[in-house]
């Protein structure tokens, strides 16, 4: 009799995704899927998907989903969680969605300590619309709207959302992770599971920032892109726990 070491998670719908080869959305979706299965939340979870490449996340994850307008997912999640507090609620947002147009919504959700989880996929670029500069694009990084590279004089320096939001009392748990190699992937899974667990305990707003690749718009192979996350992105966006109120209690 064989023993399954790993197979496709039941937390995913059995469909192909539209994501580019090697896109980390696929990996992050899996970690959420596995978490929902392990915590037995597939039947009750409601996810809010962004405008961005993950606009179709509701077709891929095996739980109820709501499509939000660009940046508004934290407000939508507030509407769901406040009226149905027993449901696990999470937003899944990219860097343009969360840190540009949605900056007010995410800030106030954290400020109010809304009891949902945000998975923030930070790949330092606008993916869906073809590679424009994002609030998290690194200094010197080229994009279609910063063709000579991000310039601090003209564009300012990028924003570290996990740290910024952690200055707010309502933030209960914030960790930055990546999925660029196996040890990092396991840590990312643990962080996501912890975020959902704390939500179900009613602790407060939980936030996992996942440094991710966009091989297509970075102009790199998937493997090289993963390396760029490890070598370059983590220099500006350090991995690790930024805030954990449970740890200080």
């Amino acid at each position, binding site marked *: 009799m064989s023993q399954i070491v790993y197979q496709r998670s039941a937390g995913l*719908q059995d469909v192909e995704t539209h994501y580019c080869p090697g896109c980390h959305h696929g990996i992050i979706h899996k970690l959420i899927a596995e978490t929902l299965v392990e915590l037995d939340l*597939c*039947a*009750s*979870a*409601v996810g*809010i998907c962004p405008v961005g490449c993950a*606009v179709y996340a*509701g*077709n891929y994850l*095996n*739980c*109820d*989903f*709501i*499509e*939000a*307008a660009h940046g*508004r997912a934290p*407000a*939508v*999640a*507030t*509407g*769901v969680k*406040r*009226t*149905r507090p027993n*449901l696990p609620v999470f937003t899944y947002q990219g860097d343009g969605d969360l840190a540009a147009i949605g900056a*007010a*919504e995410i*800030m*106030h959700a954290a400020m*109010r300590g809304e009891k949902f989880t945000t998975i923030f996929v930070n790949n330092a670029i606008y993916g869906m619309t073809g590679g424009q500069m994002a609030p998290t694009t690194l200094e010197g990084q080229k994009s279609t709207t910063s063709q000579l590279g991000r310039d601090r004089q003209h564009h300012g320096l990028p924003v570290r959302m996990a740290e910024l939001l952690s200055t707010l009392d309502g933030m209960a748990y914030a960790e930055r992770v990546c999925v660029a190699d196996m040890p990092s992937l396991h840590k990312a899974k643990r962080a996501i599971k912890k975020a959902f667990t704390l939500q179900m305990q009613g602790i407060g707003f939980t936030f996992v920032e996942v440094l991710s690749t966009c091989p297509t718009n970075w102009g790199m192979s998937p493997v090289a892109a993963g390396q760029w996350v490890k070598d370059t992105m983590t220099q500006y966006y350090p991995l690790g726990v930024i805030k954990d109120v449970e740890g200080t209690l």
Partner: protein
Amino acid sequence: MQKELWKGNEAIAEAAVRAGCDAYFGYPITPQNEIPEYMSRRMQEENRVFVQAESELAAINMVYGAAAAGMRAMTSSSSPGISLKQEGISYLIGAELPAVIVNMMRGGPGLGTIQPSQSDYFQATRSPGHGDGHMIVLAPSGIQEAVDLMQDSFDLADRWRTPVMMLADGMIGQMMEPIAWKQRPAAPAVDKPWATTGQGERGHTNFVTSLRLDSVDNEAFNEALQQKYADIGRQKTRYEEVDCEDAELILVAFGTTARIALSAARKLRQEGIRAGLFRPITLWPFPTLALQQVAGRPNVRAVLTVEMSAGQMVEDVRLALCGAKPVHFFGRTGGMIPEPAQVAQEIRRILKEEQA
């Protein structure tokens, strides 16, 4: 029936609570601030949801979330804040979600004034949000009617899976009138199998969305939406006609302006001038057939539309009558309120003109 003296904004808020509003999300803006203020206390008393959002934009998106989760959700604002909500309203329409939105209109454009106006008629009836879509628009002309229509707002929203706007003005919001709280049988609760309540034993996930990238799908959706609007329009549109049977001039006005117009008409009766009032209550769908019928009577020589705007509803009046009778317009803008004497003067002038 026992009557109580209530301020418009507070009565509308209380009416929403009694109509079963589960969640209110709002933001301060004059002249509707009493609504979020009242709701902040009242919803807590009822153990329901109240959030003062970070903006009107956030508030409408909170409504969207609560509505998607199958709850009765509401927001209120005034003109500039409604502009911010247009994106969210379009999404509500595209996802076919029920919601109630109250607009206490103020003079614009831009930041404008806090005084009353009716200059968001176009926005409400033509373009609640981008794209081909509508919401039901109800226009009370006083506090009692606003209170009565609030129950209808929630019921219509649920029944038709559409946002519903109560379009009022700062006068209605700020004034006080005696009202009666009528006991009404509750409309049967509407089943919401499409709501995101967790898939449970449902057997499939629900995905509330307005994204339809394939134009074939999107056209089919739009056609179904237009069919829904045709069905709504075929239901009884609502209006009131006063003193129109023998009228030689029909005034068409809604909201506060209707009461002013009626004052003018009643005064003129003493001078032997026969003016009547046709008051649309559903601004969308517009009571076109009823207006055609009333204005089409042989004794009617002219129609005068009176609005607190540069002339918005008058276009629907002209569209309805298609040249059958001459349509005139009188309005005040920028937050100015017309006086009955001004309306009366206009009526006299028009009838004299029509005579000549």
